[in-house]
């Protein structure tokens, strides 16, 4: 699969000159820094051996005998590409002091520890503002930093359930429906990215620093707001529509030849409907009163879906998609990971996937970063590395500590030596 073009004469990056420090774990926090680093910001990730990121507790399924492999998780390496890694035992006062010195030299602090943990460590916003009034501090947790449930423990799928997303999605026959990719983790990170960038824009115009708090629950409900409105305005639970739509029919996912092969089709207008009947070889449907108008097709969606499935069953998915698209009908193969990377000629032509340099594996392939900045294209740096991988650079070069000071801090247990946990 082709890579993004990397010429020697690379254009300036949009966020070059900015520095962020993150105290993060899992995805909802680290993914924000991934975008910032991609756009040229220097992102320093602080970790602690006493509380390893859960993504570092990775046992490779192909080689479980190796045990925990903190540098090999495909998620860790992706979410932390382009970052610097330092290791501090934040239970030590000297380590907290070094954390503060990093914050003092930074534009942004990102954290997604449990609510209250940063304050307890002495790294809460009031402390950090004292050393850097221009700082933008972003904090993300499941429930936000106020309210009766602020200390509750959640992961992405918990938020999917809590926000109503699981209950409102999927087929009516199911009690709830979940993604395998923790949709709210991504959406919380993306909302967080918007929040941080808006604060940077405000600061650029002389507005000063500030604190931003994100509740992953609330961010996910905000993204579901257009669905929630039905309850809020009309007092009724939004119906679970499966793949159907209230304003398009047919609108579904239809079986194709092969195991677990499907093609999604969306038809709104009558002309699209006519094209669909043509491609499926069922021109007689044009005279069927059940399917005469969009309103009729919506009323007979079940019969319509069953009839279409009969026609698609013997077609191959990509052939059907291409035939429908040539006729002006929105259609798409239900692609899996392998399809995306190997069979999607469009993503390949756009150079979507990326090769990340990995200190142990050599190179790893990662899903692209979809920012589409044509004037200041982003670049992915080195894949996520070891805890403390960049201690020397960060404490020595950046903070100006001498070799002896760094060794003394290691001796005192404040800086943890570079290793695999």
């Amino acid at each position, binding site marked *: 699969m082709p890579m993004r073009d990397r010429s020697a004469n690379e254009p300036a990056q949009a966020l070059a000159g900015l520095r962020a420090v993150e105290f993060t774990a899992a995805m909802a926090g680290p993914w924000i820094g991934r975008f910032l680093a991609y756009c040229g910001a220097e992102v320093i990730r602080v970790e602690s051996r006493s509380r390893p990121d859960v993504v570092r507790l990775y*046992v*490779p399924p192909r080689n479980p005998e190796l045990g925990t492999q903190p540098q090999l998780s495909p998620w860790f390496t992706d979410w932390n590409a382009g970052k610097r890694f330092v290791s501090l035992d934040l239970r030590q006062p000297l380590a907290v002091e070094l954390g503060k010195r990093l914050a003092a030299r930074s534009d942004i602090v990102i954290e997604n520890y449990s609510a209250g943990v940063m304050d307890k460590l002495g790294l809460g916003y009031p402390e950090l503002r004292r050393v850097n009034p221009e700082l933008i501090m972003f904090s993300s947790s499941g429930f936000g930093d106020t309210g009766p449930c602020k200390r509750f423990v959640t992961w992405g799928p918990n938020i999917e*359930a809590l926000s109503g997303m699981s209950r409102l999605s999927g087929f009516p026959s199911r009690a709830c429906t979940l993604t395998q990719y923790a949709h709210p983790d991504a*959406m919380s990170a993306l909302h967080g990215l918007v929040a941080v*960038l808006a604060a940077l824009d405000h600061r650029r115009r002389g507005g000063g620093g*500030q604190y931003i708090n994100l509740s992953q629950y609330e961010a996910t409900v905000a993204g579901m707001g257009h669905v929630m409105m*039905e*309850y809020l305005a009309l007092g009724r639970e939004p119906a679970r529509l499966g793949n159907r739509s209230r304003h398009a029919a047919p609108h579904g996912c239809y079986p194709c030849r092969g195991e677990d092969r499907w093609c999604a089709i969306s038809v709104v207008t009558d002309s699209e409907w006519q094209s669909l009947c043509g491609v499926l070889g069922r021109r007689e449907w044009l005279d069927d009163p059940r399917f005469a108008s969009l309103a009729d097709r919506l009323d007979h969606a079940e019969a319509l879906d069953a009839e279409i499935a009969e026609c698609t069953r013997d077609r191959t998915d990509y052939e059907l998609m291409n035939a429908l698209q040539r006729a002006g009908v929105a259609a798409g193969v239900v692609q899996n990971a392998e399809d995306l990377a190997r069979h999607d000629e469009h993503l390949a032509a756009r150079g979507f996937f990326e090769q990340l340099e990995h200190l142990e594996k050599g190179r790893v392939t990662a899903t692209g970063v979809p920012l589409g900045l044509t*004037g200041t294209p982003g670049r992915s740096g080195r894949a996520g590395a070891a805890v403390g991988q960049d201690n020397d650079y960060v404490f020595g070069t950046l903070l100006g500590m001498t070799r002896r000071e760094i060794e003394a801090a290691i001796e005192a247990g404040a800086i943890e030596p570079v290793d695999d946990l």
Partner: protein
Amino acid sequence: MPTRPSGALTGRRVLELADETGAYCGKLLADLGADVIKLEPPGGDRSRRLPPRFRAGSGREEGLSFLYLNTSKRGVTLDLQKPEGPELLARLASSADLVVETLAPGTLESLGLGYESLRRVNSRLVLTSITGFGQTGPHRDFRSSDLVASALGGAMTVTGEEEDPPVRLAGTQAYVAASTVAAASSLIALLASSQSGEGQHVDISVQEVTASVAHICGVGKWLDDGIIPRRQGTGLFASVPSGAYACQDGNVYLMVNRPLHWIALARWVHEVTGNQEILDPMFEGPSSNRQPYRELLDLFISEFTSQLSVEAAYREGQSRHIAVTPVNTAAAVAEDPHLASRGFFQEVVHPTAGRLTYPGAPYRHSETPWRIQRPAPTPGQHNQEIYRDELGISESALRALRAGGVI
């Protein structure tokens, strides 16, 4: 309603030519204080009519999704097919920071309003295009929809039950995600433009955003373990145990990712059910140790949750620091005391839809509070204000534009 917007983006001006694909992008920016002007064809955008709709008293019927996705914006009408249309848009663009559009690739160019043309009017301008497949590549002119993007982006194949067809999420999550990325990318381009004086074209593909949002199940994982992720119910493949479990009166979602959380859960299950087996040390450690016993552990946990109410499982589980949460209905979200204590939901008075409750802030800025600045505009609500008062078009010229069906 307040007259002047406030928030982190106060002073930024955005033109929005977006249907439901990109309206959330404009909302994110407008609720943060940017002056977002929504341009619609005379009579209003088609997305205004999307169901479900709401009618207050004898008022006009309003699409609820439109009301939500267009808060805080001002609205003008403009027919880009009329000769005066593109010229007016260019005039608006000359004082804007950002244009967000969701027209089919090539449409703006055909009107003489492509990025290169807009750049000549305003070199600092950022143009953000949100389309199904982006501005380049063999599928650039393919038709799309939220469903088609969810399919081609790799989200649907890993949503739902193994024995069901792939399924998409409620609402239009592919559009929401693409709009959020578009807002972020636009802000990055604006920050860069403020430094360099050079705007740029931001090319957002809904398919790429979907692939990115779903990438936990993407190429990195597949190349690493050789397993193509598929639908597998409510449990997450890497976390054992995890999933929705039935209580006496509904479902909870429970997930264990840390060794200590497992020990806490095993003790709790033992206390409630007397189950001794679950305390076996072979189940301890990271999730990978429990992977071979997933089905057995699901049985143990289902037996346990069936003895509890949702509320009891939620409160007691959380007091033991176990990630248990209810599987909420819309009603439960709307009435959640936690959200109420944070004042999450907001009341907004719309000229025709009246007073309704809306979901509130996705994030909270200490110095520049997020707020819904105003309700979604009615079609052409701000024509006078923007065309006459701000662009300086005379009354008589406006009358001519109106008569010509331009606005």
